[in-house]
C-alpha cells in the first residue's frame, strides 16, 4: 500500500522533468549543491578523511575499479543474484497467488504461513540458510527469493480477488472456461496490483542481496563494502554506496518504465501521457 503511494510520488517527480533541460538542471540543483558541499567539507578539514573521504577520492576509486574491470564483476555479481532471486520470487509468487486464489485447500494451508511470515524479519533465518545450503549463490539466491516472495503473493491474491465480478461474468457469458478466464481476464485485470507487488519486491531483493554478501562474502557490492569497512578503507565503502545507489535507482526506474509499458490501457498511464 505504502509503496503505491511512493510510486505516485515518484511519478509526479518525473512529470516535472519532462519540461526542458534547463528545468532538469534546476530540479537537480540541490543534489549538485549537496555533492559540492561534500567535497568542500572534506577539503576544509572539518572532518577526517576517514569519516568522510572527499567525493573526488571516491569517484577516483570508482574509476579505478571500472578501469580494472572489478566494478563490472562486482556489480554484475550482485545484480545476477538479486535479479535471479527476484525472478524466482516473481514466478513462484504469482503462481502461488493464483493457486491460493483458486483452491480452498491451498488457501487454508498458506494463509497463516503468509500472514505470520510476511511481517517477520526473515533475514534472521540467514544462519539457518547457511547451515542448509552453504555460503554460495544457491543460499544467497534462496534467501533473496524467500524475502521477496511475500509481497508478490499477497499482491497477486488481492489483485485476482479484486477483479470486478461483472467482468468475470461477461467473460463467462462470452464463452470463457475456467482456464481461459484465468489467462484472459483474471491475470490481466490483476496486473496493476501484481506489478505493484513486484515493485515492492525488487528493492527487497537488492537489500537482502547486499546483506547476504556482507554476511557471507563471495564478491558483490556487499562483500566489497564489508571488506573495505574492515580494512578502514573509507573511500571503498563510499564508492560502494554510490555504486549501489545508482544500481538501485536504475532498477526502480526500469520497473516503473515496464509498468507504464504494460499498462498502456490503464487510466493511470493515459493520465501520465496527458500531463
Amino acid at each position, binding site marked *: 500500500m505504502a509503496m503505491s503511494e511512493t510510486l505516485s*510520488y515518484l511519478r509526479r517527480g518525473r512529470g516535472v522533468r519532462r519540461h526542458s533541460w534547463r528545468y532538469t538542471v534546476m530540479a537537480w540543483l*540541490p543534489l549538485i549543491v549537496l555533492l559540492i558541499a561534500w567535497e568542500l567539507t572534506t577539503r576544509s578539514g572539518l572532518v577526517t578523511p576517514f569519516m568522510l573521504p572527499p567525493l573526488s577520492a571516491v569517484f577516483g576509486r570508482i574509476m579505478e575499479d571500472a578501469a580494472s574491470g572489478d566494478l563490472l564483476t562486482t556489480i554484475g555479481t550482485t545484480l545476477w543474484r538479486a535479479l535471479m532471486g527476484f525472478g524466482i520470487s516473481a514466478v513462484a509468487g504469482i503462481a502461488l497467488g493464483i493457486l491460493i486464489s483458486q483452491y480452498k485447500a491451498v488457501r487454508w494451508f498458506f494463509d497463516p504461513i503468509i500472514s505470520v511470515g510476511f511481517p517477520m524479519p526473515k*533475514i*534472521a533465518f540467514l544462519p539457518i540458510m547457511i*547451515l542448509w545450503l552453504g555460503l554460495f549463490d544457491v543460499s544467497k539466491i534462496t534467501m533473496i527469493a524467500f524475502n521477496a516472495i511475500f509481497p508478490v503473493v499477497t499482491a497477486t491474491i488481492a489483485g485476482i480477488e479484486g477483479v470486478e465480478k461483472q467482468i468475470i461474468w461477461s467473460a463467462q457469458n462470452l464463452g470463457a472456461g475456467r482456464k481461459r478466464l484465468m489467462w484472459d481476464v483474471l491475470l490481466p485485470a490483476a496486473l496493476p496490483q501484481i506489478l505493484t507487488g513486484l515493485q515492492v519486491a525488487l528493492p527487497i531483493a537488492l537489500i537482502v542481496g547486499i546483506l547476504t554478501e556482507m*554476511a557471507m562474502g563471495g564478491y558483490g557490492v556487499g562483500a566489497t*563494502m564489508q571488506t573495505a569497512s574492515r580494512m578502514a578503507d573509507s573511500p571503498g565503502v563510499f564508492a560502494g554506496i554510490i555504486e549501489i*545507489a545508482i544500481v538501485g535507482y536504475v532498477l526502480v526506474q526500469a520497473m516503473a518504465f515496464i509498468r507504464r509499458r504494460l499498462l498502456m490501457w490503464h487510466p493511470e498511464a493515459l493520465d501520465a501521457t496527458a500531463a
Partner: protein
Amino acid sequence: MARWTASLFRYSPLLILAALWEAVAQLGLVARSALPPLSDVIKAWFALAVTSDFWFNAVDSLYRTFAGLALAVVVGAAIGIAMASSKPVRAVLNPIVEVFYPLPKSALIPVTALWLGFGDMSKILLIFLGCMLPVTLGAYNGARGSEQTLMWSARSLGASRWRMLMDVVFPSAVPEILNGVRTALATSFVLLVSSEMIAARSGLGFMIGFLGDGGNFDAMFAVVFTVAFMGFIADRLYQYAMQRTLQWR
C-alpha cells in the same frame, strides 16, 4: 468456544509444520546439526530465558529499534509535512529524496559502523536513516491530500500558518503517516537483525551469530525464532493500535 476452534483450524497448518519439523528431526531424516528437533529448540529457549545474558541482549536490541524508529518517525513526518506545505523546501529536498529512496538501505551498515563503531549509536543511526523515507513519503502524500476547503475555512477563521499546520494539515496526514510507520517498523527489524549479525558486540542478532559460530544450534534456532516472532508481534500490536487510533475515520 466456536471462535477458539475457528482460529485453531485457521492456524493448524503452522501446527502441522511444527509437528513435521519434530518428526523429521526425531526420525533422523536430516542431520541434527542442520535441524535440531523443535522440542530441543524449545528446551534451549527456556534454558536461555533464565540467563541474564539473553535479556540484556534483548533489551539492547529493543532499545536500538525503538530509538531509531522514534527518531525516524518524528524527523520523517516533520520533513514530509514541510515538503508538502512549502514549495522551496520541496524543491530542495525532492531530488535528494528521489535519489536516496531506491538506495538499498542495508548498504549503510558499513558506513554507520565506520562512523560510530559497533555499539548502539551506529544501529540507531542506521535504523533512523533506513526508516525515515517511508514516513516522509507517507506524511508528504497525506499532507498534500488534506482538503483545500478545510484549509480555506481554517484560514478564514483566523488560523495562523503554524496553527493550520497543527490543526488541519497534520491530522489529515496521520493515516498515511501511520501506514508509512508500518513499513518503517518492518524495515527497522530487518536492519537491526542484520546489522547486529554483521557488525555488533551485543543484541539478539549478535547472539545468533555467536551461538552459530559456537556450534550451539539448538540455542541459535531458539534466538532466530525469537527475533522473527518479535517482528511479527510488533507488527500485530502496531496494527491493533493503528485501528484504535483511526477509529474516528
